[in-house]
């Protein structure tokens, strides 16, 4: 673990007159699972959005593999190998499930037909539901199915770094388990994960390190285990 793969330095974001993030610094090393936890409106989503450069930053830098991507076009950032599974699914409602998956491959324009088919199959194994719904439009899926589709679509580009924003939202416990197993598996094959979760205990238990965000500031950081037993975290985010 030499150089951090993704480095967020002193990031600040303002929405109009709201200061959503101030001076947030985060490091993600190659092959790690990093989790961000925090209450509603703490700025977790905003952090991911600014890595993808989908919100305007008022200060700070973002580095990916030592390349400055602070002001890089969003689509170019994706093409560096960063996949972003957004909050609220954002699937393409009029495209079929299959087409949604295909849309996920634009981050790797050179990907061959066979590779695409193989990835699609992989995702169908992971989420058999999607295979059943292959020809259905994305918009007609149930909430949870849409969430699965969003995750699968994010996996389609075979990214180096995958950023997941509340992947377990609206999913049944059994699927949530599978998602977490999957995240661990992704890490095990050498990829890197940046994870946002409301279910902090699950997230921390698989994470290598975690950051606690509060009203736009990083207030705590440590390994997953450290945070899991931290009384402050326990009280505020684990609900015990």
């Amino acid at each position, binding site marked *: 673990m030499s150089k951090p793969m993704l480095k967020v330095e002193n990031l600040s974001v303002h929405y109009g007159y709201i200061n959503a993030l101030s001076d947030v610094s985060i490091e993600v090393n190659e092959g790690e699972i990093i989790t961000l936890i925090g*209450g*509603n*409106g703490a700025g977790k989503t905003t952090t991911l959005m600014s890595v993808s450069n989908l919100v305007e930053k008022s200060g700070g830098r973002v580095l990916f593999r030592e390349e400055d991507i602070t002001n890089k076009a969003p689509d170019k950032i994706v093409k560096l190998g960063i996949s972003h599974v957004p909050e609220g699914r954002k699937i393409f409602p009029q495209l079929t499930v299959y087409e949604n998956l295909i849309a996920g491959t634009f981050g790797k324009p050179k990907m061959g037909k066979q590779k695409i088919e193989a990835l699609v199959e992989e995702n169908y194994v992971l989420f058999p*539901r999607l295979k059943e*719904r292959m020809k*259905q439009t994305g918009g*007609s*899926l*149930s*909430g*949870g*199915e849409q*969430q*699965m589709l969003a995750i699968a679509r994010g996996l389609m580009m075979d990214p180096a770094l995958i950023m997941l924003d*509340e992947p*377990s*939202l*609206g*999913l*049944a*416990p*059994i*699927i*949530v*388990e*599978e998602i*977490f197993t999957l995240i661990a598996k992704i890490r095990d094959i050498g990829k890197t994960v940046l994870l946002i979760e*409301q*279910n*902090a205990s*699950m997230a921390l238990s698989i994470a290598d390190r975690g950051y606690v965000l509060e009203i736009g500031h990083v207030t705590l950081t440590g390994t997953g285990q450290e945070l899991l037993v931290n009384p402050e975290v326990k009280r*505020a*985010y*684990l*609900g*015990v």
Partner: protein
Amino acid sequence: MAEQTLTRVPLLEAQGICKYFGGLKAVDHVDMTICQGDIFGIIGPNGAGKTTFFNICTGIFTPTQGRIFFCGEDITAMSPEAVAQKRIARTFQNLQLFKFMTVLENVKIGCHIKTKSNMFDAILHTPTFKRDEAFTTEKSLEILKRIGLFDFRDTLAGNLSYGMQRKVEIARALALDPKILLLDEPAAGMNPLETKALMEFIQALNADGYTIAVIEHDMKFVMNSCNRILVLNFGQKILEGTPAEVKTNPEVQSAYFGKGMVAGEAIR
């Protein structure tokens, strides 16, 4: 937990409900009885047909087969607005707020069926109009106080955080003075602390005599607040019973809880 009364009066009944989308059986022969005073949970894997089932109960879909009775009256083919007139209120899985209206106005719309002044009353400011407006305002503010959104009454609903938006939906539904309240994943996107607060609120409502049906994936929430639970899978009913029965059912275990890592202590 709501007290179990000895004489259970059925409020909302579903008989053999089916909903097919083309060849897809989203809901398949489901029977259900929700009684007065219940907090009734509906759980099941994703795509099991829970939301579809709610949509059928509230008139948004007409079922392919089967009937829905409310207080003994057949409401199967009724339009959503007619169902709402029967005082069945609901919230939506993907929020359907009036985003550009203030919180207070959102709740005032909820009072629509409780008032009846028409356009001419409004133009002429007749007594009916004045009475209605006074009633609407008073009632809406009362609900907002109760749910804890009073301070936000003049904020645009879309400006609130996710959790609060969910509450606005509940407040709006309460303004209908519903006989039954259907909540679709009210705790989604909330952290454990907020979920707990919501659970307490719902129990308080129940104590006040509201009957509630709730779809949730948060097992702590469901197991601790519901007195009866319906489990769906692939559109079919696996089980309807008490939390204790659901917890121990192996089929539910394998289809829904998995290893129990997430459902956690709630089911153990």
